[in-house]
């Protein structure tokens, strides 16, 4: 498979500060690649280097096999959808979309035709003569993407373009964007701090922290098999215990948490006896009042409050040491009787947890 | 409506300037009221003097704007009084009994009286006099003795004059006219002005600039940028003091003689102070001080006794008797000439 974008050993320093620290990755043609990380992790700098607004301190960027070092943004076969979209308010929708084509010297009939086609494609047929300030947030979004796609770039870069939208619209746009990408087949590189956006849309996701990639993989891998404590915490919700390893073999470790619970779980990497370790457990891994308790880690918690959110409802519980623990609450009416103040038993399978040697 | 406007403005000014001490508001030329004399005057009489600097045209414009109010004493040239008085009534008749006539050179006093006569009353007393002629740098332009030098290609880029009426008159003389004789023949005067305009427009490449500020002209002469200029005698003498090569030269066409006067505006508030100032300035010691400082001769009878020798020497050097006899004293200007001249001046300035 050809890689549309290939980054090798990219470093970017601003004075003493290293924003991007030795990042390498490849994006295969036609795929949707996301870079997920908290704000300040260097993902925007990385994107701006691909777009050409920053020059890397060292390392190489290749697009379809050609090095982009020293090539100015207006000469690169990539386009960027800006965080705040950066639509030109002095032009109408059609003029915005035609902007890049005009710069390439495309003739007027072709421009008109292409503009109409792309507007249809993003679901805004006949919007050409509208002014930018007449559009809703979602429509602006689509115009911004259309403005780039009409140029048929090798790689389309998107810098948190959904950040400014309200939640409902964001959910909707996520799906649309994914469908759009599948339809046009352009390679997308998408950066976001919202793990749900990354997981929903992407073929592959890179989790970035402090200028480095922590893990690159398909969404299911990141969620199910986080490679580092950071990924475990950043991708999806997780409960965390700290404790000490008391028994250890290749398959299983037993951890005694600082609160005194003793859990059997799955190790990640080497966890030798007597060392400190962190245990991560997803809310949905915990079963409320399990019928068959064999092989499970079971313990008592008391319910503090019910966080009702439809299919995404949780119980906020506390352990006997008063540490908070979030437990998933399936909406199948089995647990309707639970009220704040109740004591309940929860259990989880050793395979659901994951244990990392504690960070120094 | 004008009255309302004036009233409103006066109210504003009255509120603004509630100075209690007696003041004399003097509208005059730069240098005509030396600070030392102002101080002495204040010591002697307790009257404060507020001085506003101006020139003939602006003096008239200022007084016309207020119809002769706002100043207690003005010092226009004698030829610019009678027609202005006829038309706009800016001044009040001079009460010569309040002047100490023994202080004045009798012939000058009577000449000014005669020239400012409007309907049996006279409006001014003489203060000082001088001439417009040439200031010449004899090292760079030896032998210049005519207003023609101002339009002589030999001095290309080294000539400067004011674009004002004295220049028109001077060029008129240089071209062989007698402008004063044409004063009451508007048609012929117009023809002369057209000829003068043509000459001066043609001479534009020759003139370096039209000077507007006396000090900057003197600076250009001193730095050697300008060789020949039309200006007042006193300026030439000031330069001669520092550089013997530069001196005032009365041209052979005759220097243009002017007399600056004292005239009291129609709505002067402090007329008494005005007469006091006139008598004070005409005292020989004060006039002498003024002459020494500003190099102008005054109409004060005995001022020469109190004038520095160097200044007296200037006078002797530049004005031998036959030159004095040849001075072309400005007669009073008839009304219509000024707008004709104004247009001519605009035409010259606008031409490329």
């Amino acid at each position, binding site marked *: 498979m050809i890689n549309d974008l290939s980054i090798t050993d990219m470093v970017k320093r601003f004075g003493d500060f290293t924003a991007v620290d030795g990042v390498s990755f490849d994006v295969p043609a036609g795929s949707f690649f996301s870079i997920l990380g908290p704000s300040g992790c260097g993902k925007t700098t990385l994107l701006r280097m691909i777009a*050409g*607004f920053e020059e890397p301190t060292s390392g190489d960027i290749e697009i379809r096999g050609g090095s982009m070092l020293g090539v*100015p*943004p*207006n000469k690169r076969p990539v*386009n*960027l959808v*800006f*965080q*705040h979209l*950066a*639509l*030109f*308010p*002095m032009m109408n929708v059609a003029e915005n979309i035609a*902007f890049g084509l005009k*710069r*390439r010297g495309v003739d007027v009939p072709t421009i008109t035709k292409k503009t109409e086609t792309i507007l249809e494609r993003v679901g805004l047929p006949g919007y050409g003569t509208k002014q930018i300030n007449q559009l809703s947030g979602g429509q602006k979004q689509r115009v911004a993407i259309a*403005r*780039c796609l009409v*140029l048929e770039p090798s790689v389309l870069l998107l810098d948190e373009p959904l950040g400014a939208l309200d939640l409902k619209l964001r959910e909707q746009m996520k799906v649309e964007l994914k469908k759009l990408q599948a339809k046009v087949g352009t390679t997308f590189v998408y950066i976001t701090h919202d793990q749900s956006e990354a997981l929903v849309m992407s073929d592959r996701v890179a989790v970035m922290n402090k200028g480095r990639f922590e893990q690159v993989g398909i969404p299911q891998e990141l969620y199910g098999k986080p490679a580092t404590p950071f990924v475990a915490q950043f991708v999806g919700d997780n409960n965390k215990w700290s404790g000490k390893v008391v028994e250890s073999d290749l398959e299983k470790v037993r951890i005694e948490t600082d609160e005194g619970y003793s859990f059997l779980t799955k190790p990640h990497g080497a966890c030798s006896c007597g060392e400190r370790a962190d245990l991560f457990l997803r809310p949905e891994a915990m079963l409320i009042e399990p019928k068959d308790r064999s092989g499970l880690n079971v313990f008592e918690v008391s319910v503090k409050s019910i966080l009702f959110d439809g299919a995404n409802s949780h119980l906020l519980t506390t352990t006997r040491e008063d540490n908070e623990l979030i437990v998933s609450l399936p909406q199948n009416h089995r647990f309707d009787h639970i009220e704040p103040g109740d004591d309940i038993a929860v259990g989880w399978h050793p395979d659901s947890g994951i244990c990392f040697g504690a960070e120094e | *409506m*004008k009255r*309302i*406007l004036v009233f*409103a*403005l006066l109210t*504003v000014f009255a509120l603004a300037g509630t100075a209690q001490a007696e003041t004399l508001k003097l509208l005059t030329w730069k240098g005509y009221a030396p600070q030392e004399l102002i101080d002495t005057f204040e010591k002697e009489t307790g009257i404060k003097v507020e001085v506003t600097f101006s020139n003939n*045209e*602006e003096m*008239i*414009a200022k007084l*016309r704007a207020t119809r002769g109010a706002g100043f207690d004493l003005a010092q226009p040239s004698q030829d610019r009084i009678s027609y*202005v008085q006829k038309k706009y009534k800016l001044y009040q008749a001079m009460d010569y009994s309040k002047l100490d006539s023994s202080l004045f050179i009798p012939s000058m006093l009577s000449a000014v009286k005669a020239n400012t006569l409007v309907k049996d009353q006279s409006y001014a007393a003489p203060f000082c006099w001088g001439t417009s002629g040439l200031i010449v740098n004899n090292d760079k332009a030896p032998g210049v003795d005519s207003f023609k030098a101002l339009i002589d290609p030999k001095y290309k*880029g080294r000539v400067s004059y004011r*674009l*004002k009426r004295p220049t028109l008159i001077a060029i008129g003389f240089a071209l062989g006219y007698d402008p004063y004789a044409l004063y009451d023949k508007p048609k012929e005067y117009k023809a002369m002005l057209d000829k003068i305009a043509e000459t001066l427009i043609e001479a*534009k490449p020759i*003139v*370096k*600039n*039209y000077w*507007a500020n006396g000090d*900057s002209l003197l600076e*250009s002469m001193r*730095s*050697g*940028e300008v060789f020949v200029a039309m200006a007042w005698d006193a300026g030439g003498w000031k330069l001669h003091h520092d550089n013997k090569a530069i001196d005032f030269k009365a041209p052979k066409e005759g220097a243009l003689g002017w007399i600056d006067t004292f005239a009291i505006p129609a709505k002067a508030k402090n007329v008494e102070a005005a007469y006091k100032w006139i008598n004070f300035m005409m005292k020989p010691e004060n006039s002498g001080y003024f002459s020494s400082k500003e190099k102008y001769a005054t109409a004060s009878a005995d001022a020469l006794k109190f004038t520095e020798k160097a200044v007296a020497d200037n006078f002797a050097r530049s004005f031998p008797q036959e030159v004095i006899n040849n001075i072309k004293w400005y007669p009073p200007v008839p009304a219509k000439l*000024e*707008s004709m*001249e*104004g*247009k001519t*001046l*605009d*035409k010259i*300035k*606008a*031409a*490329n």
Partner: protein
Amino acid sequence: MPRSRMVFWIFFAPVIMWLMLLIVLPLCDLLTMSFRGENDYGDMVWTLQNYINFFDEPIYWLTFVRTCLYAVVTTVIVFLLSMPVSFYIAKLARARVQGALMIMLLLPFWVSELVRIYGWMILLRESGVLNFFMLKIGLINKPIEMLYNDATMIMGLVYTSMLFMVVPLVSVMESLDDSLIEAAHDLGAGQWTIWRTIIIPHCKPGITSGSIVVFMLVLGNYLTPNLMGGKNSLWFTEQIYNQFIASFNWNQGSAFGFLLLVLSSLIIWSGLKLTRQKLGEVAS
């Protein structure tokens, strides 16, 4: 309600007084004066003669045309110079440098125009500073007169009016989102295209208001053309001055004053029409 209205009038009265006394009344007075004139017998009568004179006498209207053309040329030069300067101040300079640059632009305005002009004259005159140094380093072997020509005059006018273009441009450029420039760059536009399609259209209100101010200032300037332009540069304001002061013809002067007001407003109006803008939008 009546109370707040009274407060409004208390605060508003001085403004109205100011406008009435110092602007409206004198203007009305000038307007009536401009329609008065002497007939052949020397009596004051109502007449259009003062206005007819302007169009009849080539010196007058040619001077006006010349003044306007020079004002337009100066405005264009000021605009061309101010664009990069404003862009640098608004977008490229760091915050501290930005303040310093603005102060440097303001600094010349702490002294009067007369002093500034004399400063230029000391610098440029034949025996001036610039000639001295050029002679010293052997660039020229004879001093040149740099004053008293049109180029110097325009330079002086540009110098005195530059600030009035830079300030509105800086403020309007600061409101320009940097990502618009980057987006245009990203979509394939080069430097010049970005200026033409993004920056200048965005700055249009600032450009227009700056241009109006500069144009009016230059048109109404008196000292600079007079002192630096020297012998060839009859400026229209000087003609008004001459009518009032030298020719004592206040009626003609008033008519010129009004013509200046009306014709310059007309020029600005047609300028706005030409660029399809409204004065209200520009002023806000």
